[in-house]
């Protein structure tokens, strides 16, 4: 059989699926970061702050306006606009994270079909548990959004937030486990025979921690963007404090995440096992990732220094771009690691078979149409915001 390193080039089909996989996984990560990072943030900010004054629990009783009670918290009286924003947008972000997850889910089934399914089957009930857990988290996130949540006793609120964050952690853990198990071919039979529910490996925890830290680095950048959009309706002091906090969290989390990366298998790619064309990619990702990391940190520090003006909230193009470049570098290394770990040469014929099926033109046409139509929806929504 052909070793992967013997193939110098990759078929076009493989490139297409790989690129689409990484691009869509990146989008999934953005929303997922809001969900997981936001969930963790909410839990900890709950632990810090005291119960809100009753005046904040506006919109008493049931009624349609009740739904957006959390939104009203971004009023000047409120101390933590981050908290209010996250609560308000969490249900949508979950929807978006799930929907965005479907696309890489499709492409991974073409790229690594047999391994992905096998890991799913081995984890079995544990894997399927993702679904009810996310349903629970979703409904609880709606509860967290309502005014009723604010009027709950502190320990109830803490319990609900802990469950929500716990659910997201569980899902992240499951994906990490599934990924690692899919690569650990030697363990499959024994895992099956022993009917295990948990994949134990020293790689799981650092990797999970690395992702959680990464979400805590991404989420603040997204929230700053949202605060910027709402800056005119918020108090200056609250914004100033929020901005500083978001930058600190993002910076610290990014550094921790980068440090933790060294304890995962992601950066340790055996380049000799990569197809020829990909062998140079590894050092490139190190370089690009390293520079991006540095720039992201510098950008974040820059938006912290000096006295606060609302302009400081403006999405910092440098940190956003640099952070994105860093995440892409990590995702690419993650993929190179997997390509080197599996018998990739044996998989490319399957990609070519898949590419022979038609429908790609129809896909492109409808992608274009639907992007435009989604733009129409967003324009209508923005108009509503202005009135």
């Amino acid at each position, binding site marked *: 059989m052909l070793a992967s390193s013997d193939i110098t080039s990759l078929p076009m089909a493989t490139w297409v699926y790989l690129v689409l996989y990484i691009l869509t996984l990146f989008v999934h990560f953005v929303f997922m970061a809001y969900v997981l990072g936001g969930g963790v943030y909410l839990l900890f900010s709950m632990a810090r702050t005291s119960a809100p004054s009753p005046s904040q629990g506006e919109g008493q009783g049931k009624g349609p306006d009740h739904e957006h009670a959390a939104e009203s918290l971004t009023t000047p009286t409120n101390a933590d606009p981050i908290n209010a924003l996250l609560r308000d947008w969490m249900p949508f972000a979950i929807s978006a994270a799930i929907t965005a997850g479907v696309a890489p889910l499709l492409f991974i089934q073409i790229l690594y079909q047999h391994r992905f399914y*096998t890991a799913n089957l081995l984890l079995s009930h544990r894997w399927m548990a993702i679904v009810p857990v996310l349903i629970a988290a979703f409904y609880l996130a709606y509860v967290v959004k309502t005014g009723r949540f604010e009027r709950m006793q502190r320990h109830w609120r803490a319990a609900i937030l802990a469950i929500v964050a716990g659910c997201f952690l569980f899902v992240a853990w499951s994906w990490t486990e599934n990924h690692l198990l899919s690569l650990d071919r030697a363990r499959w039979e024994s895992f099956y025979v022993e009917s295990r529910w948990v994949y134990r490996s020293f790689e799981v925890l650092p990797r999970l921690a690395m992702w959680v830290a990464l979400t805590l680095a991404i989420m603040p950048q997204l929230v700053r963007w949202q605060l910027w959009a709402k800056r005119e309706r918020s108090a200056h002091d609250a914004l100033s404090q929020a901005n500083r906090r978001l930058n600190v969290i993002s910076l610290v989390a990014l550094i921790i995440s980068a440090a933790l990366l060294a304890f995962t298998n992601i950066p340790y790619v055996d380049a000799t096992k990569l197809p020829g064309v990909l062998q140079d990619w590894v050092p490139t990702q190190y370089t690009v990732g390293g520079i991006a990391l540095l720039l992201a940190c510098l950008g974040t520090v820059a938006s912290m220094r000096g006295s606060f003006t609302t302009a400081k909230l403006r999405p910092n193009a440098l940190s956003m771009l640099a952070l994105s470049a860093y995440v892409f570098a990590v995702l690419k290394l993650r993929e190179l690691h997997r390509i080197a770990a599996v018998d990739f040469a044996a998989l490319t014929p399957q990609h070519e078979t898949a590419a022979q099926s038609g429908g790609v033109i129809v896909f492109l046409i409808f992608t274009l149409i639907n992007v435009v139509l989604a733009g129409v929806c967003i324009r209508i929504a923005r108009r509503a915001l202005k009135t």
Partner: protein
Amino acid sequence: MEFQAFPVNEFDPAIKGMVIGGVGIVHVFLAQFAIGGGFLMLFFQWLATTGRNPHARRFLDGYFKVLVLVSFVLGALTGVAMWFTTIQISPRTIGVMVTEYHWIWATEWTFFCLEVVAGYAFYRYGKRLDDKSRFTLLGLYSIAAWFSLFWINGILSWQLTPGGWTTERTVWSGFFNPSFWPSLIFRTITALTIASLVACLVITTMKGVDRAARRSLQNHAAWLLAPMTLMPLLGIWFLAVIPDDSRSWVLGGSAAMTLFMGLALSASLLIGLYALIGLIRTRLFINGATAALLLALAFGATAAGEFVREGVRKPFTIREYLYSNSIRPDEIATLREDGCLSVDPYPLRNADALPDDTLRMGAQVYRMQCSVCHTVAGVNGLTHLTGTWSVEQKRMNIAKLQHTKPFMPPFAGNAAEVEALVQYLSWAHDADSYQTDTINNPVVLSEIQRWLDDAGTEAGIALVSAGKGEH
């Protein structure tokens, strides 16, 4: 051979069909609610804009919240659940589906995204919008939701009636297959029905409107129930396009299938007639209990319909291409030579519970070839089905599996594997009836081999289609 085995999970005492059926029914019901709900809201927005029903707008906002809470959350996640369940039950089936139809799925996904954006924009800002903008958002939401049905319907109907795909192997020859249109219309009508019935229920819970207002809202909602009366016609159309053998199961060949099909159609007809006569002609008001009952009836019809759809595909998950037990017709001959266990690296989970290697071998053959439709002693349990059979009967009926019942695939292993399976089933039924060492008995094996050869490797359904069925 490129055969790649997967680890097999069992769900005793339930059969896998019940697992996927259960998830499927819930998902289909919710997804259809989301689709029909879009059209219903569009209709009510029109009633509001044109002043035909002064309460329409108020109803809309309440209804939309139900739709979002139920369908955005449960609809989307049960969709993911459907996918994951299919992987659990038949990874090879979903693998083929993804390989063949991923661009269709990717297209469907762009519609999901539009649905989420339009739906969420309406949910968040709908109350502040003018009628025209509301109409646009609801219109886009409905179209996006319906198109997701359009795409998935092509893939699901292809599984039963692959049509031109069998020879051409192109996406579109499979997508626009013979049962595409009847299924699409069938599902669209069901979607409208479910949305309308939920509306009737939601209307009964509305506060601050009088009975006359509620009645007028219900009477408008009921218009979406009227197409239900077409269901029997669609049923006939559907039956006309499905394969002969599948039709024969529904028309008496399988009592359960006939029963379910009858149930689905009569429940649909009942709802349609009730709508026509009660709500539209005599402008009745229906209370919460009745609305809930009608909704339960619709759920029953959906469930029965899904059961039939899943059931009539047997013995295939992809007609003529892949058997339910994940073996392809063109692999049977090789597996008869080499034995099916040659391609399965996974040892048994309960190996220690079995006294010897023959029984372990039998259990493994059972796991690979039978466990997708049977259990050993639970639902559709093999020890019940074969309990009264002599050992020769078992040997013959299993070796000639596709003749025993044409909705089973041909046996895909060698003679020793048949014998191991026979002994395993005997042992599981009654440990004393286990005969050791028959697996090495050349007389037994050559007789089994003769039966295997007699039965051939063709699917049993060919016999039904040719009218040569032994039943």
